[in-house]
């Protein structure tokens, strides 16, 4: 081979791509199939992967009052960069309630690892697909409070259908089991009461 043939061969490769780029239909799918196509971002978007994660959100069933979080503080303890801050809510008598009064996540600190989601025993916190959260002020715009974090279960179904299905199924089953156990306990208590009444009666009459 003559001197300079290596350069020419390389140029042929780029020339091939230059020419073929005019005959490729522009779409996200062709980009994945190996063509060099620029995606016109805000107008065109790639389909999000189901497991994609970035920032956490709090899930609620039906109404925002009905959030699943019980303020157990496990996610705050497990969070590697410690970006979650939780304060439990108390009622008027000072009795602790099973819900958070304050639930703040500092998105400037969060490193999107997903450990809060893994550790949550109540399936209350999940990683969202929302990534367009840029704002002008980092103290106000990126410190998310409880109301900003709350999202309905339907949102979870929209972004991660298979995970939502399995979790809903598990929760339903647990609920039914709990109800069945409650009903059984009630029946048992009623039976025990009856038997204790019958047991207590004889000495009275005696």
């Amino acid at each position: 081979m003559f001197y300079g043939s290596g350069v020419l061969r390389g140029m042929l490769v780029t020339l091939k791509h230059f020419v073929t780029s005019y005959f490729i239909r522009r779409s996200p799918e062709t980009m994945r199939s190996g063509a060099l196509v620029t995606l016109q971002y805000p107008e065109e978007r790639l389909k999000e992967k189901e497991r994609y994660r970035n920032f956490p959100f709090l899930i609620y069933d039906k109404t925002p009052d009905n959030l699943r979080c019980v303020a157990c503080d496990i996610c705050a303890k497990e969070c590697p960069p410690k970006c979650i801050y939780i304060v439990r809510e108390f009622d008027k008598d000072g009795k602790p309630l099973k819900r958070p009064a304050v639930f703040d996540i500092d998105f400037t600190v969060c490193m999107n690892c997903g450990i809060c989601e893994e550790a949550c025993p109540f399936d209350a916190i999940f990683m969202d697909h929302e990534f367009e959260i840029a704002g002008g002020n980092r103290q106000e715009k990126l410190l998310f409070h409880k109301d900003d974090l709350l999202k309905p279960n339907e949102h979870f179904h929209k972004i991660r259908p298979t995970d939502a299905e399995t979790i809903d199924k598990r929760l339903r089953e647990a609920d039914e089991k709990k109800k069945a156990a409650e009903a059984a306990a009630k029946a048992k208590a009623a039976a025990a009461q009856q038997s204790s009444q019958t047991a207590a009666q004889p000495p009275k009459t005696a």
Partner: protein
Amino acid sequence: MEKTFTLQDLGASIDTQTLEVNIGPQHPSTHGVFRMNVVLDGETILSLKPVMGYLHRNHEQIAENMSYTGTMPYTDRLDYFNSMSNNLAWAMTVEKLANIDVPERAQYIRVIMAELTRIVNHVSVIGFLLNDLGAFFTPVLYAFREREKILDLFEETAGSRMMCNYLRFGGIKRDLPAGTLEKIKSVTSNLPKFLDEFEALLSKNEILCMRCQNVGVLPAELAVSASITGPMLRASGVNYDIRKVDRYSIYDRFKFRVPLGSKGDVYDRYYVRVLEIRESLKILEQALKDIPAGETISKKMAPFLKAPRNFKPPVGEAYARVEAPKGELGFYVVSDGTPQPWRYHVRAPSFINLTILEDMCIGQKIADAIVILGSVDIVLGEVDH
């Protein structure tokens, strides 16, 4: 006080002054925040002092105040090109410490991910090396097109393109989603075609050869005595691959060869990486064929997925190492039986490979120093952990 030139100096022997130049810390060719104090005579390098630590962020201290699983996402950020192999090294260390077995399927998935990472790393480092040579962004974009497809696979399995945080002690976080194995197969089956094209673009290019051959030569003895590892050591002709030496995980089941260079110059380092991608493809092919069904995390460790802080390994110490794409990546950990490690240390390949930079650069031209640095393959996240 600077000495001034006189015209009579321009005789047979030119008495020139040395010139001190700071390359970096904010310079695109230093791959991050890294400074080189270079003393030049004309364009020839007389001495080069690497200055590190601009990106130091207390990685080891953070890990000593963190649960073992909590350290996993931090290891992603060491060498942010290869989070999967960093995860693998850390997971293997704790598994050694606490004597944990890993199920078959998890082992295979780990190997598949580690080899995909190696491909990602090697294609991008070759692209960046060409960037440093002045082939501005054409080879990088060819490399990134393939990298993009593999990162999509990572996003699909682990949830994140670069910060995967996918492995757990005793297995992996979640099984692969349905259909991903087929996608990995189709991506890897297209890679040889891409490599041929990439090589046609670069390997025989006269400009690349001229700039890279006999530049930054690292003799084998010096490489060994400076404990250089990875493709850099193999480019110098030393047959040392931890996948072969330790046979960790399930690497003893796969047939693959260790490509070696002969001279140890920049071109050998480039070409060893190209060949390593081809060997990785062989491993991937075999792993994808043999991968069994089954559980992905050991029964002993499954409860700790939900409660990482309850995991307390026994008192003791362990060091485990893997052949990361950049060299030997090892973690040393001392446990005192609490949820946090008592001592945690990273043997970072980028950092140790960088210590030899001065010896390779002395006597070379200033423009070659950039190329030699590019061929070392550093990531500053790992150098300055």
